[in-house]
């Protein structure tokens, strides 16, 4: 029983991180119509920056509890990186998709190496953050309190993002722009600004994903590529450009993955891709996709 609960928690934990990554990917596509292949790498950057900051802080004798504050800092850094990179993409908004895919693919290759240039080959960890919180007992088993925080952040992010998009003026601008770029600019919206902020938010989400997960794991080279593919599966299932889609997709993927690990370890990965392929067949735009 307690095993079941913990596996469910594990899935939710995994889902919240996946959601953060996929929602960012989806938001960027929804508004800017760009499939950002470098998105997973933004997630990795978030992890590395946070782990590095935490390491420094601990070394400087900052009490572990305070290092919690470094998580938003890490995510913010990625958002800034996004703001810096967005101008690079501007020439491609009106160009064919293949160009957008390729320029972001190039970006992926570059960033992956830049990470290595900055932090080298050794895995970075930030677990002092995790140990600030006690573990919770489930029957005979224990579950790290921090993981519950990660789940909470995932939920909060989902609600927050929803609120921003559907309850604020800025959200209206976002949706207007995603509906029809020309119309939006005709209505006097500063589309350029909308794009920058959408991209920054998307990067922030990815960065946050990396920042909250790194204390429970390690920041390692290549983590971004794996994340990207999983995020792809998520948005394909949920629907590119759909927030609900990212949420449901993330839940499906993480629960299927857990079930795969528990019951049929041999084809754990293949199942995910098959689900994606099947969804694309019956509903090419994904479960919640429009466009």
């Amino acid at each position, binding site marked *: 029983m307690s*095993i079941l609960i*913990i*596996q469910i928690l*594990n*899935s939710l*934990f*995994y889902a919240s991180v996946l959601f953060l990554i996929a929602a960012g990917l989806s938001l960027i596509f929804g508004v800017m119509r760009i499939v950002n292949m470098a998105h997973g790498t933004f997630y990795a950057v978030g992890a590395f920056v946070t782990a590095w900051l935490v390491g420094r802080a601990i070394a400087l004798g900052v009490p572990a509890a305070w290092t919690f504050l470094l998580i938003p800092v890490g995510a913010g850094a990625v958002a800034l990186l996004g703001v810096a990179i967005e101008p690079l993409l501007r020439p491609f908004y009106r160009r064919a998709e293949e160009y957008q895919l390729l320029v972001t693919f190039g970006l992926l290759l570059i960033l992956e*190496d830049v990470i*290595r240039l900055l932090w*080298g*080959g*050794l*895995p970075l*960890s930030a*677990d002092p953050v*995790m*140990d600030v919180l006690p*573990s919770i007992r489930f029957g005979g*088993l*224990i*579950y*790290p309190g*921090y*993981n519950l925080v990660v789940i909470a952040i995932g939920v909060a992010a989902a609600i927050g993002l929803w609120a921003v998009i559907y309850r604020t003026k800025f959200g209206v601008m976002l949706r207007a722009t995603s509906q029809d770029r020309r119309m939006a600019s005709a209505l006097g919206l500063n589309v350029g600004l909308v794009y920058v902020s959408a991209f920054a938010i998307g990067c922030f989400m990815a960065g946050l994903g990396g920042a909250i*997960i790194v204390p*429970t*794991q*390690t920041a*390692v*080279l*290549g*983590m971004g590529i*794996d994340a990207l593919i999983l995020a792809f599966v998520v948005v394909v299932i949920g629907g590119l450009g759909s927030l609900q889609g990212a949420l449901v997709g993330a839940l499906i993927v993480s629960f299927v*993955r*857990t079930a795969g*690990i*528990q019951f049929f*370890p*041999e084809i*754990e*990965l293949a199942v995910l891709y098959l689900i994606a392929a099947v969804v694309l067949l019956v509903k090419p735009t994904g479960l919640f996709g429009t466009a």
Partner: protein
Amino acid sequence: MDKPTAVDRRKFLGALGVTVGGTGLAGAGLVAGPQLVKAAGEPPKGKIPDTPYRTGHMTFFTSPAAVLGEPSYKGHIMAAEEINAQGGFLGKRKIETITADEAAGTDANVKELRRMKLEGKIDLFTGIISSGNTPALGPVAEELSLLTIFVDGCTDFLFDKAVPQPKYTFRITNIQSADGITSAIGTAQTWPQVRRIAHIHPDYSYGRNAAEHFTLALERLLPGTEVVSESWPKLGTTDFTSHITKAMSANPDLLYTAVWGGDYVAFYKQALRYGLFDKMKVATTLALGVAPHAIGKDHPEGVLAGVHSNYYFTYPGGDRWPLNKEFVQRYHKRWNEYPNFQSEGSYVTLYMLKKAIERANQLVGGWPDDEVIISQLEGMGYDAPSGYVYIRPDNHQGYKDAVIGFSKNLPDYPFSTWDPNRVITIPIRNITAPPSWPKPGQGHNESTAAADWIKKTWPKATG
């Protein structure tokens, strides 16, 4: 398969030559040897060209496996610097090194090896971490008649199948099957009561091989053990929570894992917080092997911590084996970190080659042909930091006594290390198939000669 006979476990382990001792003591097969770094004995015969000796070192500079690649490269460079300080091979030929990134992918590596030989004009190819790459590159090296000494890439498959009659290819580190068997012996020796075994392994040949040989050996050492849970996370996985929970759900007595590198760091940190280490014993193949400083102080104690059944820098320790003491000191001075088995392997590679070249020169004079150098490498015994290394002439495989220890947090190191008083050593000859043993496809279809050998010859332990 013929029915295994039954013998008493203690006798059995004794027969395997298993010794449990402190790092101060010499393990099996250790003989105090001459100092490693010393000017060549005899002056070189004949005229030696002073053209540089070009080596190609291919290893992981990128990807998660860089944690193994960098030590390998550092060991190579350090040896090259030392040898060059004496004027190079035979005091004349300075060692030049060109590198390539193993992470470019097996297929790109094949291309790159050809480029190094045909364009880079290298005299020696060395390095290689991944057991997926040696079977690809071995045949190419033979094809190019290029003297090649793999540091790792330890799969039995290389000399069992890919290059059954090696001429130019050698390998310095212990073979893969030794990992599983060593962990199994360590387990039987330490925790004879375990019966229910859980497995978590990276889903590629290394993990598969480790699981298979561990299980085979354990069946004989601890009859009645059963596999109660299996997980095969993809190499590069960082979220193990579901795998850990699955393993715990089967409440096993022992978890055996071949997860390594960044994956292992992520794994033990999560396992720790899921209370896995309180629930079961844990045996590993590579936990402390990757890079000593990669494992934090938070690593639990008493884990059977594998080092690829090759080498850990604190063993043989003390002044009992100065070769190692001095090697570690020099390495730490040069790189400001401690060596791992890759560092030692690539370091020893160049020194064994040096010895072979010197002998060959004494035989034929001048700069010896590869054929002569190879003849000297075959069957060479050598006193290395890790102990006595022997290159078997039949399969060009380097053998050293297998070692495995238990994790412990000592004040003198900023990371988790081996318990100095509990190191298990096993004479390698007792856990690998003898030279004459048929290779897979020759009368049996086991995955390795070792597997077939265990099935056919190992008795079942009792008591």
